[in-house]
Structure formats: structure tokens, C-alpha cells
């Protein structure tokens, strides 16, 4: 029979010291069984899409530093109609202008990818509220999921709670206080950020940030890093905090 363990002052102290907030007290081993199964970010390669490898590498560095996730810092580019897409469960598409409709083969490939567990972040770098890139994203979403709306993700969505407590998304700009997303059953495999997230994370060859976020500068960049970490955690853990036992704990802490 399992032993029942009572709560004593010493145990409570050790519990708080060593395990509260999921913090372990021992150094971790830090490699997966093969680099390909480590977490990485791949960019979608379209004729008009932007390439911001340095932004994602910077972001992955922060993910590695802040969480227990093991990362692969390579940022490959993949095309939508290739089987290679399925080697990269987390992908991003960055743009600041309209992109042409992708092929039917690409749509079918991407739909299977998202339906079976892939994640796509559409990052609008235009700095405009209703940009041509956003219109192209909406058209892509309609073709992928004709019956599912690309809708605002409100404050109770898990993406705002997956690691940090966030009130709103941010990036290089502060254009919209909400992410957009497509809800597929209980998960949101496609998310749009119109605030140029990658723009806030880009660094040059010397490791200096390229853009100063507006209007709040470095504070806004810090929030952008937190946004990326939340997106990564959400893509990996989805809505696990909605499991019954977690809901009870979160309600107790009044943080849900």
C-alpha cells in the first residue's frame, strides 16, 4: 500500500524550496536522443516571405534559458508542399506584403500538417493595422479551414497563460491587443500576430537588436520575448492547464 505522507513544517519548507512552481533543485541533463527531436523553428519559404533567422535564434536562446525545453538553434526554411514540412512541428511565416495564393497541393499538405499536430505562426511585419499580408493570411486561413473562423483569441486563451501571465500580445509594434487564431477542436494550430514579433527579436551580426520597439522600447522587447516563449509552450503543451486537476489548482491561486 502507498504510504500516506503528512505535511510537516520541514517538508513544507523543502517542498516550497525545491519543487514549488515546477523548479527542480538538481542540474539537468541537456540533450535529447538526437538533434532532430529537439525543439526548433522553421520558416515557411514563399516568394514574398521574409527571412529572419536571427530573430528566431535569439528567441530560441531565450526559450533555452527560461524553460526546460531543449532547442535546436538551426532555423531551416521549408516549402509548404514538401514532406519536409512534417519534420518541423513549429513553423513561422513572416511577411510585410501580400503573398500569392499557394497551390492546392500546398493547402492540402498544410491542412494535414496542422490537423495532425503541427503549428503555424503568421507574423505580420508590415506595421499596419489592416495590411495586405494580413488579408493574405485570412485568405490562406479560409482555404485551409473554410468552416472555421480566424477569430480574436481573448484573454482566457491558454496562449496567454502557457508560461508567463500576459495581458496582450506585442512585438516591434503595438497594433492589436489580441492574437488571431483558428480553433480546431481543443487546440489552436494557426495563430496570427500583427505586431511584428520577429522584428522585436532580430539581431545583427554583432548581436545587437536591429529595431527599437515602439512605443515602449526595451520593455516592449522583453514582453515580446515572453510572447514568443508563451507561443512555444502553447504549441508544445496546448491546453494542459485545462486538465481538471490543474483547473482546481489555478482557481485556488486565482490565476486562471
Amino acid at each position: 500500500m502507498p504510504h500516506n505522507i503528512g505535511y510537516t513544517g520541514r517538508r513544507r519548507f523543502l517542498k516550497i524550496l525545491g519543487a514549488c512552481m515546477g523548479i527542480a533543485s538538481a542540474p539537468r541533463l541537456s540533450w535529447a536522443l538526437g538533434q532532430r527531436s529537439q525543439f526548433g523553428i522553421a520558416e515557411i519559404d514563399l516568394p514574398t516571405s521574409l527571412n529572419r533567422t536571427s530573430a528566431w535564434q535569439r528567441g530560441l536562446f531565450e526559450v533555452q534559458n527560461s524553460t526546460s525545453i531543449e532547442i535546436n538553434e538551426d532555423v531551416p526554411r521549408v516549402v509548404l508542399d514538401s514532406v519536409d514540412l512534417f519534420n518541423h512541428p513549429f513553423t513561422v511565416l513572416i511577411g510585410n506584403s501580400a503573398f500569392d495564393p499557394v497551390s492546392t497541393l500546398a493547402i492540402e499538405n498544410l491542412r494535414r500538417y496542422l490537423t495532425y499536430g503541427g503549428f503555424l505562426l503568421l507574423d505580420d511585419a508590415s506595421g499596419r493595422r489592416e495590411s495586405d499580408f494580413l488579408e493574405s493570411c485570412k485568405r490562406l486561413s479560409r482555404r485551409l479551414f473554410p468552416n472555421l473562423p480566424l477569430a480574436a483569441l481573448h484573454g482566457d486563451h491558454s496562449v496567454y497563460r502557457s508560461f508567463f501571465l500576459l495581458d496582450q500580445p506585442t512585438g516591434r509594434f503595438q497594433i492589436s491587443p489580441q492574437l488571431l487564431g483558428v480553433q480546431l477542436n481543443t487546440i489552436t494550430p494557426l495563430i496570427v500576430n500583427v505586431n511584428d514579433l520577429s522584428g522585436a527579436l532580430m539581431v545583427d551580426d554583432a548581436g545587437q537588436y536591429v529595431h527599437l520597439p515602439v512605443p515602449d522600447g526595451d520593455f516592449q522587447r522583453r514582453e515580446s520575448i515572453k510572447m514568443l516563449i508563451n507561443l512555444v509552450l502553447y504549441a508544445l503543451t496546448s491546453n494542459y492547464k485545462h486538465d481538471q486537476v490543474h483547473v482546481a489548482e489555478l482557481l485556488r491561486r486565482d490565476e486562471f
Partner: protein
Amino acid sequence: MEWLLGVNIETVHALEWASPTWKVFLGIALVALSLLGLWRGRRGMPKVGLEMLLWSIIGVVLVSMNAEPTLISEVGTPADGKTVVLVDASASMSVESNGNSRFDRAQDIVRRLQKDVTGDVEVWYFDGSLTQSVPSVVNLGHQTDLAQGLRSVYDRYLGQDLQGVILITDGIDRSVLEDSMGSLPVLPGPLSVIQMHEQSPIYDESIVRVDTGGFAFQRLNFEVTAHVRGTPNETLTVKLRKSNNVVNEKTVSLDSTGSGKATFMIRPLEVGRFAWDVEIPVDARDVVPSNNYFPVVIKVVRDEVRVLQVCGSPSYDQKFLRLFLKEDPSVDLISFFILRTHDDLSSNWSSDELSLIAFPYEKLFTEELETFDLVIFQNFNYQPFFTYQSEELLGNIAQYVRGGGGFVMIGGDRSFDLGEYGNTAIEDILPVNLGTLEQSSEEGFVPTLTESGKVHPLTQLSSTTEESQFAWTQLPSMDGYNRIASVKSDAATLLQHPTAKDDAGKPLSILSVREVEKGRVMALNVDSSWRWSYSEA
């Protein structure tokens, strides 16, 4: 006739007209018109008055005949309605006073009623059901259900006018009379209650009722609440038994009215119907020992399969396993992911910024463990969390498996030897032996089916063995593996590495299973099984 029958016969006569009203009025109209025509033709003639009188009489006779007069005579004698007597036949009616039990005194009253009450007197005896057979004092029932007795009277005499319903009872109801007060029927006659009681107080401890809800879910707690009565402000020992074995015992403090209740928490481990009973030890002074015992039958059903997934680091492998399990509506999945470790503290985030919850490992692997059907350790290193409790908590898991639980270990840099599970209680239950020097490999490979894997249901991907074998060759390659020392003799390897060998020189096991007493264990020593999920796409 009245002398012959011995009763007064009353006769009632009534004259009624059988013809329809319109026919009567039509006859009257025709006669009137005929008389009018006759009078106008004979006006001025002698003795016309006499003639008209005679014709009028003939007309009245014709009209009367046309109306078909009928004389109805009712002959009979008035009778009184039945009187129904309901006698409580529960065990509490066996309480004696001056040598006579309550039931004996109730029978005396019944006999007096049968003698004195006019009309038929029908006597029924009830406990949980209704009967006209007179029970003996030693065979009285266990239950007094007043509401059911009154409903039975309502059903049996529906549509009749009863002279009255007489209820003879001591008033000790062991069913749910309070709950059914609102649904008691309107009886077909006035209700009189005769209460049987003694002048001097009696000593009786009893179980009034036991609430269970009727069914329970396997491995989940449910309550059995016994409502008891006894001497006010005293204590009472209440026992819960299963198969004549006492499984729990409570001492209940009774209130000023002598009432109290004992609540037992039960966690059933097996599915089926099980008989439990609640019992109060019989005191030598207790005049009704039979109400110190209350049997209940509880049906235990399986709820969803409860799975605990514990993962040492968010990863693709963890994500796809979670998605896979979450898609199955019969699985109740609880996931715990270690999002942050000691090394991550250097990132200088304030705890106010974080949305993390504690990992309740103590609770999970002690009191909650039995509520799960399956525990999955996915790339989870126990040491940073279990610390000085490691031996105890890992021992709990091993014991849980031996008692019928399921356990799966999935590979990664925190699993098997890399998670330092060698020489622990977990190694004892795993299908593989640990303790190898070369603990992992990052070489990609496609696992192959073993002879056991070709026929084992776990690795059947298609309806035929040939199709299943072919399907395995088409699956994506794995990115690496955890090495193991060897496979235990009572385990079965289902998938193996195509070329690598374990320390025993045998093909390296990749997927193996083992039965450990009542439980089952599986070892999958790769962390890239997520690639199999995409093979469907």
C-alpha cells in the same frame, strides 16, 4: 323479503319519458292544430263544447302514448364503504410491554375494529411490501415504509369510496418518508392513525437508513452514510463490513434527539455488484436487535481510463502523445510537464510574471496514485523532485503496478539509465535491465518487429500480419534510443533495433512489455515516436 334478507329494502319510483323531446312537442302541436281545425268547423253547432272536450281527452291520451311514459322503480338496500386497516409489521413492532408486543396489541385493535366497524374491514400488513397474511412476531420485517404502504392502498382501492383508512404503527420509518412527503397520494377515504407505544421508554439503538447513491466509479472515492438513532447525547459505534469483514469503524456522537450519522469513504478497486452492510453492535438492553443491521448493494462501474502523464520537459514527443490520448474520449488524461528547472533560474524572470503551478508529486504518488489506471513517465527524471523520498515514492509506484496498475516509461535524456532508474523499485518492474555503460545513441534507425511483435495486439497496425509488417517498414525512422542492458526473462520484446545489440549480445529492445503480478509495464526507449503520428497525415 326483508325478513328473508335481514335488511331494510327501500323502493324508489320515478316516471320518465322515453321519447325524444322534439317528438313529444310535435305530437302536442299536431293534436292542438287538429282540435283548432275541428272547433272552427263545428262552431255554432249544438253540444260542440261537449264534443270538443271528448276530442281533447282523446288528444291528451294520444300525446301521452306518443311520449312513451316509463315507470322506473329502484329497489335496494344502502351499504357502507370498506374500511382498510394497515398494520405495521416491521421489527420495531416486536417491542414488548407487560408481556405483549406492540404487534400483539395491534392485533387486538384489529379484532375490535372487525367487530365494531360497520361494513367490510380489510386488513393489510406492511413493512417494505403489502400482504394480507398475518406475520408472526418473530418474523417481522426489517423495514417500515409508511409512504409505500399508503401508496399501495391508493393503488388497490383506486376509484372506490372507503369508509376510512386506519394506520396502526409505532411510527419508526426506516425508508425515506421525509423525502416523499410531497408525493404522498390522496387516499380514497379519511386516514386515522393509531400509534403503538409504551408508557415507559425502551432502549433501542437502530440504523434508520444508509445513503449510498446506489453506484460508484472504480478507483474513485464515494461515500456511504449511515443515519443512526440511539440514546440522546451518547456515542454509538458504527461498523462498515464487506463480506462479513469489518473494513471501517466509526464512533458517532448522537445529538440531543438521539440522531447521528457516520460517513465512510470507500475506494472500490474492482468492477461489479458488491454487498456491504452497516452494523451497530447489539447492546444487551436493546429490545430490537434486528434494526442494528442494514445491508446495501453497490454497483461499481468503470469510468474513463485515467492516465497520468508526467514529462520532464516539453517536447514534440510529449506533445503528440498528449494529443493522441486527448483525442480518445474514453481517456481522462492528466498531464504534468516540468516547464522550468534549476538551470532556468538564471533567466531572472520574476515569479509574478510566471503562470506556473506546483508539481504535487507527493500527493500524486501517494494518495492519488490508486485513482489512475496508467502512469506514464515520459523523459522524466525523478531525482530533482522526489529527493529524500525517492525510495518511498518509487516503491509506491511499483506496489501500485503489482496491485493492477499500468506503467509506461518512454525514452529521452531523462529516462532509463539517463534518469538513474537503475537499482530502484522502478527497475524491478520494468521489462528491461538497466546498468549499461553506453546509455544512449543518436543514430537514426527504423525499428523492426520481433516474432512476438508480429502477433502481439500492441504492434498490429493492420488486419493481417503481412500488412502490419509492411506498415512498420514504412514508418519514419527514429532519431536515437536509450540503451538497455538486457531484456528480463519474463518480458516480451515487440520492436528491436535492426543492428544494435544489448549487453547480453541480443538485438537491442526498443519496445518491450511485461506483466508484473496484476499489473502491466511497457518500455519504449526512444523519444521520437512523435514521428509515427505524422505517418497518418
